[in-house]
């Protein structure tokens, strides 16, 4: 017990409720300890209180937060919660350092990286002023940045996501802290970049750095943590050594989390009839770059370069890629939110460009889209009923209110929501429920094909699987096709018949999901698949 680096005991944090005298408890009686050189992972969904627990160690909570009387955080013999501002400031950055989630917002946008890292050294007077620049150079090198001098002079927005996060880690390591707190350090990064950062952190771990790693992603935590703390709704549900935890979880919540972990084993799909719903041939979407006095087009950004695929009735085609691969651009061109530069898109055998004048009714009834962020996909000032019927009212000339209500009821049943929800406003619902409403809205026009743009990435793990099950059920029931846009390989494995892998606007590989995921042929696909942290790789721990 006495060799614990930091001991958190009975930590309770409360916030006052606005315009009232009562409080809400956001962290309730949390206790754990971190030994020297150990990595403790705190896992929980959003709202579980994990970030606030970590912030409280350095008194970084908002001013209105109230800490419980018998809470204590013992570090080096002192209770960190009762230190004065001056004493805490000495500790921050030097003994305990924090790496925050999203480097682009966590770094000062108008100061260079070099200046920001040097600032930590200056404040704690670790090195003499003349040695600061060389120290910063060394720190950047240690975190794996190649062009150190360029990085030193760059502003945060000029670097890639991965380099920014490395710079953040360098900044945290500047004063050689005893404990490194990492709050979702890889959540906003692409899978391949994430894998590299995890490797970097593993190196640090081997050098003996104690870490407090916070994440909602159990598979990422599993790569690094020696000890796991699971939090749900402000309390600790379970805590155990990592090896014991993954083999034998005790609480039902942990069991649920573990079972929701991605499984790259591809579900075998019943093959479908060859009936083309969507045919894309040689699609190119280029954005012009305008330069000069007369704004002449000097070049093009090829967001999508010669992509072709077909989707049959009742089939799911997954388009996989990282950010910038062009997959969202493909989706937007399919629903004409963006115009294709060349190539053809055909729905039900008829070219999209000729749908406007065709006698087959508007194209909107053939393909619809479910958007990524359920929080911005619904107008907060419109009731659920109005959001769902909006398309119907625009497409069908005259339809009675009773018919509309009947249709909305049918849709809500299909997506598993209570019928009385239709008179409520979006803010009354959780993310998962909102996404179901969006699905209902998309199905309102009876489309033959539904584009799902990252349907689960904004949701908690426990909700994700339920939503995917729902989508599979609807596909079986209605025989609808899906075009699934995602970066999450596990979702592909669960849902897709066919896969198209995209990178920088080009198709790298395509084929049946079984072929591509189990036996990838291209280098990029292999890297992509290898970067995904999964339960299979746990066996290596």
């Amino acid at each position, binding site marked *: 017990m006495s060799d614990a680096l930091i001991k958190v005991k009975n930590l309770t944090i409360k916030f006052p409720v606005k315009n009232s005298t009562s409080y809400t408890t956001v962290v309730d009686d949390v206790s754990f300890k971190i030994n020297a050189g150990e990595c403790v992972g705190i896992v929980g969904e959003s709202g579980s209180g994990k970030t606030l627990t970590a912030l409280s160690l350095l008194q970084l909570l908002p001013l209105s937060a109230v800490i419980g009387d018998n809470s204590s955080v013992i570090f080096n013999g002192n209770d960190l919660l009762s230190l004065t501002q001056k004493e805490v400031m000495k500790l921050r950055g030097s003994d305990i350092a924090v790496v925050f989630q999203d480097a682009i917002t966590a770094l000062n946008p108008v100061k260079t990286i070099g200046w920001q890292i040097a600032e930590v050294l200056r404040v704690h007077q670790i090195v003499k002023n003349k040695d600061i620049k060389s120290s910063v150079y060394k720190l950047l090198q240690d975190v794996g940045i190649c062009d150190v001098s360029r990085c030193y002079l760059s502003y945060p927005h000029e670097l890639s996501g991965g380099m920014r996060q490395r710079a953040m880690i360098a900044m945290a390591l500047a004063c050689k802290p005893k404990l490194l707190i990492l709050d979702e350090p890889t959540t906003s990064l692409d899978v391949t970049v994430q894998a590299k950062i995890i490797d970097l952190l593993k190196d640090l771990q081997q050098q003996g750095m104690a870490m407090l790693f916070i994440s909602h992603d159990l598979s990422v935590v599993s790569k690094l943590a020696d000890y796991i703390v699971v939090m749900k709704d402000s309390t600790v549900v379970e805590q155990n050594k990592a090896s014991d935890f993954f083999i034998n979880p005790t609480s039902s919540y942990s069991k649920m989390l573990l079972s929701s972990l991605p499984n790259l084993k591809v579900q075998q799909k019943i093959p479908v009839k060859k009936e083309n719903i969507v045919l894309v041939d040689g699609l190119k979407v280029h954005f012009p770059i305008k330069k000069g006095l007369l704004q002449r087009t000097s070049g093009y950004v090829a967001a999508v370069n010669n992509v072709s695929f077909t989707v049959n009735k009742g089939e799911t085609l997954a388009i996989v890629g990282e950010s910038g691969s062009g997959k969202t651009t493909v989706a937007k061109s399919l629903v004409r*939110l963006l115009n294709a530069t060349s190539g053809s898109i055909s729905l039900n055998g008829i070219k999209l460009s000729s749908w406007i004048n065709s006698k087959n009714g508007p194209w909107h009834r053939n393909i*619809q*889209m479910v958007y990524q962020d359920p929080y*911005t996909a619904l*107008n907060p000032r419109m009731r659920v009923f109005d959001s769902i019927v909006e*398309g119907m009212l625009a*497409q069908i000339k005259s339809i009675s209110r009773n018919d509309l209500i009947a249709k909305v009821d049918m849709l809500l049943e299909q997506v598993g929501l209570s019928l009385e929800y239709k008179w409520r406003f979006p803010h009354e619902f959780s993310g998962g429920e909102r996404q179901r409403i969006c699905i209902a*809205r998309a199905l*309102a026009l009876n489309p033959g094909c539904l584009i799902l743009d990252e349907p689960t990435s904004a949701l908690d793990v426990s909700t994700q699987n339920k939503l995917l099950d729902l989508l599979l059920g609807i596909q079986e029931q209605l025989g609808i096709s899906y075009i699934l846009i995602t970066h999450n390989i596990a979702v592909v494995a669960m849902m897709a018949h066919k896969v198209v892998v995209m990178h920088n606007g080009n198709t790298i590989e395509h084929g049946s999901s079984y072929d591509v995921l189990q036996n990838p042929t291209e280098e990029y696909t292999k890297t992509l698949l290898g970067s995904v942290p999964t339960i299979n790789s746990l066996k290596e721990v």
Partner: protein
Amino acid sequence: MKVHPSFLVSDYLLWALVVAVLVYVVYVCKNRHLLESWSLIAKNSITMVAVVVFCFYFFICLLDSIHLRIDSKSYSRDQVSVLDLVLPSHMVQSETTYSAPLSQSLYVKSLLSDHAGNSYRGHALLLGNKARLSTKSLRIRQSLLILEGVIIGLALGLFCHILFLIIFSYKKNISIWSCFNNIWQGKTRFALKSFWLTMFGCFIVLSVMFLLSINYHVMGTTQVGVDVLYETLKSIRTGIVIGTFTTVFMLPFALVLGSMAGYFGSIYDDVIQYIYITLSSIPGVLLISAVILVMQVYINQHAELFPTVSMRADIRLIALCIVLGITSWATLCRLIRAETLKLKQMDYVAAAKTQGVKPISILFKHILPNVMHIVIITVVLDFSSLVLAEAVLSYVGVGVDPSTFSWGNMINSARLEMAREPVVWWPLLSAMLVMFGLVLSANLLADSVRDAFDPKH
């Protein structure tokens, strides 16, 4: 004595505004989102004070907006408002010239004759004062009146309060005593304690002023003998008219053009931007003075349409509001355009587009309701700056007609009065105090509105 209503154009507009506000209140009650935001405002005690004070100002303005024509010998002015009828007649009559606040005689010396028939230079007594009292007994008499006023004010307030308690306890099904307790211990959901404290305060102040005005001039009189407090109260209407009509006139243009420029982009955006940059570049003073002059010419040429002085002044007031609207719509338009550009990126707009909803529908159903918070914040914020601007414009000479009662005109004449020996300070102080009250309550309300409606908070 025949009495018939003769409304001015601005009267019609003001009452139309009242109707529109009532319609909006009904709309808010049905819409839970908006109801919550507005309730946040009602929970803040300081804002409650500001709201009550503002409502009293507005009430006085409304009283002043019902004009009647009375065919009777005792009314020399062509049009009288209900406010004139409600105020003590002593206040409405004019003295000869300056008099200090709460005094019984004129400020300047003039030729008088005593009961023996000899002439001497002295301070003539004001109307309604039959005998000259000593200062001490004058002040005693006035203090008694103040005490009376306080008591009457408290009684009035208590009466309203008891009525309120009865209705409140009936609706909530609790006893009157517990209602009373809840309010005065500050346990109610809305800030009712401050509400009633302010109500009592206002009733007391108004009663005291009313009682004192029966025989004395509370804030003295002007150069032509008009009661200063009377002039100040009549100016409330001018201030509120300018503060509200200006925004009302420019609102539709800014909304429609701003959202069109943001949503449709390309040529619409270029043209609308061109229009508002050009308009912003012209010095406001020039635009206003030019339009006012044009108005004058028009009025002079069509004299038969505006038979009375008040109608002419009224049209000039409305013209001023229109011009101020033209010069100030650019800022709101720019804000709405910026917000529309942001909203265009929202997924629900994309979803509506994919479902084939027409652009006009998207503008009305998705864009406009989500820019309303900017509109509300701007409307309330601009109110106070417009009231202050009127004062400045009157000074420059392009404000309201000199015959209209306005704080600007009062301050304008006050400048010269400050140079007099002895100094005449009361018109300036009166205008400043009352204007300050209105502008301060509007500013406090604006702060609260911004906190409640800004989505960032």
